[in-house]
């Protein structure tokens, strides 16, 4: 997901120079006036480029639209074009005990995970950026490794460890697994802020007589907050949608929403799944909207 590979230095996409634009346009215009055939080819190429891109965008977004249509369509099977709008699947979803139990359990796990991942990841990022650790690069690589290692392996390894230690499948075990796969997001976003941080602000506070503790709480922390917050929001979404780790670590009767949806999907394909999907999509969007409103998205989605 978004904020990983740390190697890419920051850059501005849309700050492209207006002067360059007009220069380019002028060149193109003159090329076209010289060779009308070439101009036509360029226009055709441009049209093809846009067509391909719009097709890709449709491919990306149509399935999500289909889910919404399916959730609102009153028939118990997939019907296209839709025959009407009803909320019966939403009623069924919110009335189904197993779905509600899973939804509440998922929110609980996501909140616990977010708290753990934010606290641990935020602290770790500070230590990496400011602690003058020997081998900080390796520490960082290790902290980010759960992002690229298959999560199904994290799940399998934890499952085996819990079996060997005979601890059963406790809630803390699940939260630990989720924390492991969400910590990298918090570390990434917090480090992104810490790297752009003007150290002179802290120096100024110190020179004006603030104690190290006061400097930390009144200068460092408020400035780092957006990064930590962004990380927390990513952690929440990733934990809420997490599948492979949960697959191994949930106990029967205490399943997260994605697991319950998966088990339902194996046998049934009615609108309840659509309604459940819409609810989880809306939840993610609300959270992202909050993220965009508070800290802005652009800074955190660099790969």
């Amino acid at each position, binding site marked *: 997901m978004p904020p990983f590979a740390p190697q890419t230095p920051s850059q501005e996409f849309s700050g492209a120079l207006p002067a360059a634009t007009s220069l380019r346009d002028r060149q193109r215009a003159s090329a076209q006036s010289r060779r009308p055939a070439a101009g036509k080819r360029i226009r055709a190429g441009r049209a093809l480029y846009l067509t391909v891109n719009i097709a890709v965008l449709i491919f*990306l977004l149509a*399935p999500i639209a289909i889910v919404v249509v399916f959730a609102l369509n009153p028939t118990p099977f997939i019907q296209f074009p839709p025959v009407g709008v009803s909320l019966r699947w939403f009623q069924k979803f919110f009335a189904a005990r197993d779905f509600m139990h899973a939804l509440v359990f998922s929110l609980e796990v996501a909140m616990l995970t977010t708290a753990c991942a934010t606290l641990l990841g935020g602290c770790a990022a500070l230590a990496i950026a400011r602690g003058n650790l020997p081998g900080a690069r390796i520490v960082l690589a290790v902290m980010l490794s759960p992002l690229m290692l298959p999560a199904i392996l994290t799940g399998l390894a934890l499952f085996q460890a819990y079996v060997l230690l005979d601890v059963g499948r406790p809630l803390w075990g699940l939260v630990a697994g989720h924390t492991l796969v969400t910590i990298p997001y918090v570390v990434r976003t917090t480090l992104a802020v810490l790297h752009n941080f003007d150290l002179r602000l802290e120096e100024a506070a110190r020179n004006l007589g603030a104690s190290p503790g006061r400097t930390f709480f009144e200068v460092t922390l408020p400035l780092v907050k957006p990064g930590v917050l962004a990380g927390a929001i990513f952690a929440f979404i990733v934990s809420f949608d997490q599948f492979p780790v949960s697959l191994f670590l949930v106990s029967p009767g205490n399943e997260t929403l994605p697991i319950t949806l998966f088990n339902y999907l194996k046998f049934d394909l009615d609108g309840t799944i659509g309604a459940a999907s819409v609810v989880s999509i809306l939840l993610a969007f609300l959270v992202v909207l909050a993220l965009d409103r508070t800290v802005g998205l652009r800074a955190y989605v660099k790969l």
Partner: protein
Amino acid sequence: MAVARTNGLALLLLPSALLFALFFFVPIGLMAVMSLLTGNPVVAANVAFTARHYLRIVNDPYYLEVIWTTIRIGLWTTLISLLIGYPLAHWMARIRSRAGHAALLMAVLAPMLTGVVVRTFAWMALLSDKGVINQILASLGLTTKPVQLMYNETGIVVGLVHIYVPFMVLTLTGVIGRIDERLEQAAESLGASPLRSFLEVTLPLSLPGILAGSLLVFALSISAYVTPILLGGFQIMTLPILIYQQISANFNIGFAAALGMVLLLVSLLLIVAYNRVLGLVSGQHELQ
């Protein structure tokens, strides 16, 4: 003010270090040990070291076929993600309006923020025998009986491409965005057509991004579980499905661990390669 020795803030790493040690390194170490044991040392007596789990993978053509299927699906997913992701990444990197860029970014992120199970469900609704595509084909009179679009590898690849193409786009956008546009302008003012300047300037310069994005998408798609099992209709066996089956149906922890180690080894190789490639790109950038 930076002091060149470890200070008190370094202690803040301890809680995370403890979490990683206890819940990451120890379990993966245990998995490595379990893959070499004849049984569970906690419950069984006379447990000895053995290589039989690995020999079973190597000697049984069925398991090699499973590994090959996993890799084949991964390769197709990577190739198609690259082909459809590149134009979009190029557009994102070169679009001039800020609002346009934000809209494209949202379009790429929206699927990423939708859970894997939900997106797989969406593809089931589209591709199944009574799904949207077959209904449209039938109502247009193009087909009389449903075309089988899922329960095969094609369906799996389509679903996986949808899930992982955003990763490709975001990786490529970063690299294409860093190519100096003046190089393309120079090529065009020297008489090259936009196509030729793309093929001879932009494309070669974006090669590291192509490689990094491909490694990332390949690593992700060989470890996918939900999409292959649902869109494959429990018919097609991949490595992650096999691993979970060994746990849930056969409770063969040792063999599952050995299969896990195979997946771990492949993934580690891919991660090292990915980091080297991206390290090279940023290294070049710093030199410029």
